[in-house]
């Protein structure tokens, strides 16, 4: 599934979305479209506005400006009808911990008016999906984190919603469980369910069809993981190690062919227009200034590298603007 397809069969349409809390702008002019069966990940630091956008899409918050259509229905004018078409898993784990697995499922079956003759089958599906067979009578409070999350997903999809909102579903869950959770999401998407999921684990972007990087209420990059790796930085990345970080960084920022340089741990990430050329030219340039890097090599950035770069660049741009 790619972005063009998505636009043609959009399940979620957001245009010019703004959310203000008093003078604080939590969501700042955000627009995007998500197509049927697509998995879109929202990534970004805490407080970036990921949850706020999802909560607006679920009809939990009223937008300050902009248009939001979910499943073709306007969320602001008809939130109750939207709620019949969505499944929502909130950031905080929010099943009834003092109820058993089965009781929780039955409760959501009732709340979503799942037809009685289908309920048993749907519950079976959710229990199998969450791998909770044999634990139907267990109190949710006694289940491990990963199981609780999968049960929450099971409850959210019990009524077969065509659109699913998952707000940090994997936070606090151990890696193997996270992996399994993503497999479930892919199974659902393959059946045509549209999934919008937020996470602060950058590596999880790789599991999404498209990822949107959100910082301070704005989408600063959006695309497939491959697209992002190829184009989001606007250049190629070199890693430079040296003893004298400060002077070297200052020199690099003036160097020809260098787009940007920033400290990354105990090394420097250098963004250049042409990696091959800079690999030969930069050592000589630095040598003129009596700077001797101990290593200089090309790196193929992970999505996490890219996001860290983009967020840092975005922050710098905002500081300049301010």
């Amino acid at each position, binding site marked *: 599934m790619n972005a063009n397809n998505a636009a043609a069969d959009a399940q979620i349409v957001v245009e010019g979305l703004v959310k203000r809390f008093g003078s604080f702008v939590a969501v700042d002019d955000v627009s995007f479209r998500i197509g049927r069966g697509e998995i879109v990940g929202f990534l970004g630091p805490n407080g970036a506005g990921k949850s706020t956008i999802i909560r607006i899409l679920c009809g939990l918050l009223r937008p300050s400006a902009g248009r939001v259509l979910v499943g073709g229905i306007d969320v602001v004018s008809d939130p109750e009808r939207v*709620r*019949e078409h969505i499944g*929502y898993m909130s950031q905080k784990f*929010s099943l009834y911990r003092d109820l058993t697995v089965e009781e929780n499922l039955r*409760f959501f079956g009732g*709340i979503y008016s799942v037809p009685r003759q289908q309920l048993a089958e749907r519950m079976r599906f959710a229990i199998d999906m969450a791998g909770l067979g044999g634990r139907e009578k267990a109190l949710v409070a006694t289940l491990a984190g990963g199981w609780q999350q999968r049960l929450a997903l099971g409850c959210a999809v019990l009524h077969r919603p065509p659109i699913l909102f998952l707000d940090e579903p994997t936070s606090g869950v151990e890696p193997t469980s996270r992996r399994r959770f993503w497999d479930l999401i892919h199974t659902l998407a393959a059946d045509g369910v549209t999934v919008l999921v937020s996470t602060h684990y950058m590596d999880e972007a790789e599991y999404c069809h498209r990822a949107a990087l959100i910082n301070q209420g704005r989408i600063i990059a959006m695309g497939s993981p491959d697209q992002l790796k190829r184009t989001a930085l606007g250049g190629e990345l070199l890693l430079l190690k040296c003893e004298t970080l400060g002077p070297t960084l200052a020199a690099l920022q003036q160097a020809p062919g260098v787009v940007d340089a920033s400290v990354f741990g105990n090394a420097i990430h250098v963004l250049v227009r042409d990696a091959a050329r800079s690999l030969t030219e930069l050592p000589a340039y630095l040598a003129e200034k009596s700077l001797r890097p101990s290593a200089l090599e090309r790196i193929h950035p992970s999505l996490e590298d890219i996001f860290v770069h983009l967020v840092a660049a975005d922050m710098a741009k905002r500081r300049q603007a301010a």
Partner: protein
Amino acid sequence: MRLRRLNAIAVKEVLQIWRDPRSLMIALLLPFTQMFLFGYGVNLDLKHLPICTFDREGSQASQDLFKHFQASLYFAIAHNVKTYPEMVAAIDRGDCRAGIVVPPDFSERLNDAGTASVQAILDGTDDNTANIAFAYAAAVVSGYSNDIQLSWLDRQGRTLQQVTPLVVQSRVWFNEDLVSRNFIIPGLVAVIMAMVGAQLTSLTIAREWERGTMELLVSTPVTSSEVMFGKLIPYLILGWLDAAFCLTIAVLWFAVPFRGTLFALFLTTTLFLAVVLSMGYLFSVLIRSQVGASQIALVATLLPAMLLSGYIFPIDQMPPFIQDLTYLIYARYYVTIIKAIFLKGIGIGQLMMPILFLVIYALAVVGLAARAFRKRLT
């Protein structure tokens, strides 16, 4: 309102009540302990009040008078003193609540003038007891005076009818024995129901907020009124059970006479429960914390129900301003109703006014609670 969703909320609530020891304690243990605590603790009857006697004459007549005191249920002679200071000391120590002094010329005056006075000294620190004790003492003395009048008439060879044209007899209706328990216990049921009812529901919405399940609930198609009624129905059933429980204790254990109909009791109790349950629900919606809401509910229900409902303190003896205030206290109407049903045995027809007030109250609180909890966007 869809029955399916209402049912889902109600079933969930029942399961949560069942698994929450705090709710169960409030629902089952609290009414039980309160019934016995207040049922026994609050007793306005004066019985065997300790008194001391100071017989300054030491005659047959004075001893006869004291025998009347001793024979009465209301007094018990604890001391016989020889001087005033001794009597004062006994009252000061609290050994005696009253002193009866017979003057040195008691029998002399009785024989000569046909009338004599007896002095009663009362401990005024508890004016309620003092008033009641004085009235009883007067009754004992007048009983004694009747006796000697009779024996005097006897000696004259005449009968009572000839000299006593008018006898005032007071007869108390509805609580013939004037047992304070009989009018306290039905009121107590009202106080307990007010407290327990609001306590139970004060937890229900706050619990959803505290545990983070509220946001999920709002994201589902369930409506506010389905949530409200779905949550109130289980507590109404619990409230009926509690009421039945308290009323059974009142009738079977405390032997309070029940003269009304169960139908009238059921109807008015349901109305009252509607008020208190939605009151607790309202606090829960507004305060969003279980501890906060239950404390507010306790203060807002228990104090007015205890002090201003007429449960113990008669409303018509309050200052006019406070009397007006009691019209705001919903417990007042139920206390009036339940006492009337218990002791007078009157039906719905004669209780129209307090019932009407309760209906208005119930509608207002349910309406407010429904308004306060809306699934609205912020």
